[in-house]
């Protein structure tokens, strides 16, 4: 333990020295540049939600000096003394004009309210439209919950994760599959954060719905290109889901009634402008309806609920304390199935899983352009499988607990935006514990607990050299320790990891590090604007991943275990370069972009044939680490304003894996590249919102993608009466292409009529033309007949749904 701390200190000291020196000179430069005597500063917030408005234009009309508010809604304008008119405007809001007298530093907080006249301007993206030209980052997409609500939803369930699938570079292996595949990454290569707390499974009911309650979400940011040095630990992307802050001024009560789930939410200010609370719950308890169905589904249980709570405390204008708690639960039981991989045949298994996340965050606005954020996070994910049959009764549980502390300092300036921070994360993974039932003959299994710590320090600065040219350069150093107690096998060098090649067993006592890994992760983004409406951007990142989801099925099961790197399992490393071209037309009415990327991964996980991922005590024997490569082109055109808004995207993306030929005896296809399960070369999405009246929106989305890879058998033989298919390759065939059209009609209350109760009707039809998209392809194995492929479509018809949402 002491040595560990010593090592961290030893590693971090030079880094911190560089960091502090850098910061010192930076501040000096800032001070020297200031010639004005006073500053007008403050925050711009939305009148209803109290959310900060970022990107609002703030102008002093007389001096023609102006700025935009930052991500926190903050602005600051240096000015000489005198009388001025301050003008604040933002798309969709009524502009405000405030006369001010400057003879000292002036604090001017501004509340903007939505302008009913501007309601036809459905802002697709919550940031301002020219942001894509002016910001230095590439591959970042932000969706506000307002625009997510406009996307037609399956069974009327507004779904954050599903909505992201409409963006370029984002895909999934199939309807009902959990998670997202971003730019050729697997689902566990995305860092999914809900108010800073990592989420280990973002799906309800095996993947039909996502766990984010739309009533509690503020906005969603997906970074798939230039990922900020602030984030690390995953190699593909960062999905940052920010929850709403409770309203500090007035209470509200809202909810919705849908065919799958019902929602209720409440926001109450406990002390006006100081302390407020948000509670929002969602639950599906409709599975009693299965009892009305035919016998085969009567025993089915499929329930979920989630509860989101947030407390916001603002003791002063300069400090804020918030606490978020999220709790979700899923239960799924099929009347009869068998858990083949556990080698027991059960008449029914019950799956349960839960997420319990907590975030405590403290913000201190040190000065008008500097802030310090301290965050403490705990994420718990538990999965459980229970089989009731007496002789083989068992209870199989696994869990992962993450505890993290983070500190982040941000300084924003005219020419520089500096941020740096430190973080430390502790993992405790209980891989799988099997507890037999009272009359069961099965032996109890308790796989050794995995303990690990991941620490990181980062420093990032954005230089705005000129209006044309800006650079973000960041450096992250991550350091990983796998901690004892641990028993580790050492294998003969270069040998495949099987029991026969074990050379020695090493035992590590509690607290000692059995293996450490570390390395720098450079991040770089460049922007060069050719003119006001056109820019070219490039980025490079290296990301390291020390924790992964252990799953060899096409779509991961919610009960799949997590594992960390260790002596034998190396951390995944991915390097991505991307190049983007961005052009806005007709005064930002149209945005277009083209982005190219190439990503190379080391130690990309694959698995040996018939890997035992549930009970393996030596996971390194099941995992084969190969090479991965992903590349693609993403095109997007988006219309931001007018009665008709929306976007069209086209993505060409490839993801391939290669396994070294020395694994030939344990892997069925080695030495050649083969497509990953989620490799879908062509994807096209069209999303349109048409506002027919002030309160009626008609929205449609269309999606087309190449079918996912599949492995078809080339030959067969009979063994003990079973037809055995022969698979000479992996993923070299494809299931049929996928396409679907959805429609939604949203009727909102008329904004011109002031009423306390606001009800919204959402009528949506999923898969309007009833395309029987292939969910899976299987072969009927009949010895006596010709064997043909069969296509199973489970979403094979149009699914209409009606949802009613209310607020007062």
């Amino acid at each position, binding site marked *: 333990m002491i040595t560990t701390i010593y090592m961290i200190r030893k590693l971090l000291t030079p880094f911190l020295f560089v960091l502090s020196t850098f910061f010192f000179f930076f501040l000096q430069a800032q001070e020297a540049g200031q010639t004005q005597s006073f500053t007008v500063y403050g925050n711009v917030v939305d009148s209803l939600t109290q959310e900060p408005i970022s990107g609002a234009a703030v102008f002093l009309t007389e001096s023609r000096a102006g700025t935009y508010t930052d991500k926190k809604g903050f602005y600051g304008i240096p000015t000489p003394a005198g009388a001025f008119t301050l003008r604040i405007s933002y798309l969709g809001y009524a502009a405000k004009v405030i006369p001010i007298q400057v003879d000292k530093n002036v604090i001017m907080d501004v509340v903007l309210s939505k302008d009913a006249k501007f309601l036809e301007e459905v802002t697709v993206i919550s940031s301002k439209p020219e942001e894509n030209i002016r910001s230095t980052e590439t591959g970042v997409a932000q969706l506000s919950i307002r625009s997510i609500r406009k996307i037609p939803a399956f069974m009327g369930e507004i779904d954050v994760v599903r909505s992201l699938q409409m963006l370029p570079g984002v895909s999934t292996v199939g309807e009902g599959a959990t998670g997202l595949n971003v730019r050729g990454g697997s689902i566990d290569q995305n860092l999914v954060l809900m108010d800073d707390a990592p989420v280990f499974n973002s799906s309800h009911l095996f993947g039909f719905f996502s766990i984010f309650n739309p009533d509690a979400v503020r906005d969603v940011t997906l970074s798939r290109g230039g990922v900020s040095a602030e984030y690390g630990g995953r190699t593909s992307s960062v999905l940052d889901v920010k929850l709403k802050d409770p309203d500090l001024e007035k209470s509200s009560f809202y909810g919705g009634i849908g065919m799958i789930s019902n929602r209720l939410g409440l926001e109450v200010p406990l002390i006006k402008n100081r302390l407020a609370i948000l509670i929002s719950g969602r639950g599906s308890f409709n599975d009693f309806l299965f009892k009305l169905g035919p016998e085969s589904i009567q025993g089915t249980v499929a329930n979920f609920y989630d509860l989101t709570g947030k407390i916001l405390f603002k003791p002063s204008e300069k400090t804020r304390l918030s606490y978020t708690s999220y709790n979700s639960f899923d239960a799924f039981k099929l009347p009869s199935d068998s858990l083949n991989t556990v080698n027991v045949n059960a008449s029914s298994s019950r799956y349960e899983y839960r997420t319990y996340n907590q975030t405590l965050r403290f913000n201190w606005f040190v000065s008008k352009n500097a802030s310090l954020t301290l965050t403490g996070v705990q994420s718990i994910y538990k999965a459980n499988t229970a089989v009731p049959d007496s002789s083989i009764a068992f209870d199989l549980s696994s869990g992962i607990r993450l505890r993290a502390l983070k500190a982040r300092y941000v300084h924003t300036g005219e020419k520089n935006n500096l941020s740096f921070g430190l973080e430390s994360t502790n993992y405790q993974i209980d891989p799988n514990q099997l507890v037999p039932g009272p009359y069961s003959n099965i*032996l109890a299994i308790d796989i050794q607990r995995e303990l690990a710590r991941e620490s990181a320090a980062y420093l990032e600065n954005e230089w705005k050299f000129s209006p044309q040219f800006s650079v973000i350069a960041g450096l992250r150093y991550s350091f990983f320790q796998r901690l004892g107690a641990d028993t580790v096998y050492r294998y003969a060098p270069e040998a495949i990891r099987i029991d026969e090649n074990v050379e020695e067993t090493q035992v590590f006592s509690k607290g000692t590090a059995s293996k450490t890994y570390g390395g720098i992760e450079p991040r770089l983004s460049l922007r060069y604007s050719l003119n006001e409406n056109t820019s070219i951007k490039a980025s490079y990142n290296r990301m390291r991943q020390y924790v992964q989801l252990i799953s060899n099925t096409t779509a991961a099961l919610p009960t799949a275990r997590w594992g960390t790197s260790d002596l034998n399992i190396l951390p995944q490393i991915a390097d991505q370069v991307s190049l983007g071209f961005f052009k806005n037309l007709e005064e930002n009415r149209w945005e277009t972009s083209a982005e190219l990327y190439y990503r190379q991964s080391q130690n990309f996980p694959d698995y040996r044939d018939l890997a035992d991922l549930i009970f393996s005590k030596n996971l390194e024997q099941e995992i084969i680490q190969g090479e991965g490569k992903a590349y693609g082109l993403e095109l997007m055109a988006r219309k931001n304003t007018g009665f008709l808004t929306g976007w069209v995207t086209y993505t060409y993306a490839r993801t391939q894996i290669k396994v070294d030929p020395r694994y030939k005896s344990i892997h069925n296809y080695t030495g050649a590249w083969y497509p990953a399960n989620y490799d879908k070369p062509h994807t096209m999405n069209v999303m349109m919102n048409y506002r027919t009246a002030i309160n009626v929106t008609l929205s449609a989305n269309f999606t087309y993608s190449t079918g996912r890879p599949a492995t078809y058998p080339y030959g067969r033989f009979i063994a003990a009466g079973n037809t*055995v298919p022969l698979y000479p390759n992996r993923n070299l065939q494809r299931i049929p292409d996928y396409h679907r059209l959805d429609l939604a009609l949203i009727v909102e209350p008329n904004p011109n009529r002031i009423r306390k109760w606001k009800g919204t009707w959402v009528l949506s039809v999923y898969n309007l033309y009833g395309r029987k998209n292939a969910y*899976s392809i299987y072969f009927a194995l009949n010895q006596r007949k010709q064997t043909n492929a069969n296509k*199973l*479509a489970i979403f094979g018809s149009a699914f209409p749904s009606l949802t009613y949402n209310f607020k007062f």
Partner: protein
Amino acid sequence: MNIPAFAKLRKWKSLCLLLFLGASLSTCVNPLEVGVPDEMQGLVVNASLTTYPGLQEVRLYKSAAFTTRALYYAVTNAQVWVEDELGQRQFFFESVKNSGIYLPQNRNFVGEIGRTYVLHIRTSDNQTFASKPEKLKETPPIKKIYPEAIISEDPVSGQVLSGYKILLDTDDPASKGDYYRWSWVHYERQGYCFTFDGIPFGGNLATRIGFACCETECWDIHRCYLNCTNVLSDALINGRSISRQPLHSIPYCPRDYYIEVQQRSISRDAYNYWRTVDQLSSNNGSIFDAAPAAVRGNISCTSDSTLQVYGLFEVADIYETGVFIDRIPAQFTIPTLFTCEPTPISANPFECRPCVESAFRTRIKPKYWTK
């Protein structure tokens, strides 16, 4: 909104959910043309060496293309022999009746516990194949074979006794790394050896109208044809008793049910082979399926490593036993659901036919038949 409106909504919602359920149940399965190359030709070896006389056999044929009708090309005129670690060879010769099936020269040849055997094959095109050395391990005796009632839900009668599970108990030795495979054969005594079809009086459809009795005693043979890859590793139960291992499920019929069960001690390779066979034949293409795997047996081509060989040389000690399963419940607490073979009572005692020996019928009394 007032309360009745909520109630109305709820009512409407249940209706919609039913519609949803209805829709989801109408999930459809359609045949699909997929282009699968028909190029997988390989040698398939199904070979077994046991401690029971008459069970030693080697079957050789070519694997079939997946999407074509099953056509098995027997591999004939091969030289086949088994060699133990002392260098003793037992040659196998192709059966005259069944091409592709090779039987030992000495019909009473059996494997010995503790010996290690290697299977050698030389095909007519002079390719040579050999198995890994396989050690014959002793299997513990079967302790008990017994039935357990299957109670199911009947739409009309509610809970009914519809059948029995046949379960098995045995003691696993203290050693680690024991692997088992079970197989079964069921014999049913036949009361008739021939059936007549005809047009009954007043009817117009040909139906079964009569049965002819058997000249000798006669049994129908039912083997496990599908999903006979019943294997178990002692990894989870090492040293304890294996109990309630499911063997077979049988329908309810108030008659004794005769079954012969073989318990084999197999090698780790064989266990993995059968598990692969089981998993590959039960994968149904769903997104929760495990990645496809190669079927690795224990035989390889020694003359050309690129030639594909599938199948297994299974070396096993066998413990065999036969029992009558009592299918009459001790007390009739719930209704029962009959599924019986046609009753032979009406067989014509004056017109008897011979019991023709085949793979499905025999005159020979089963080994453990005591009645």
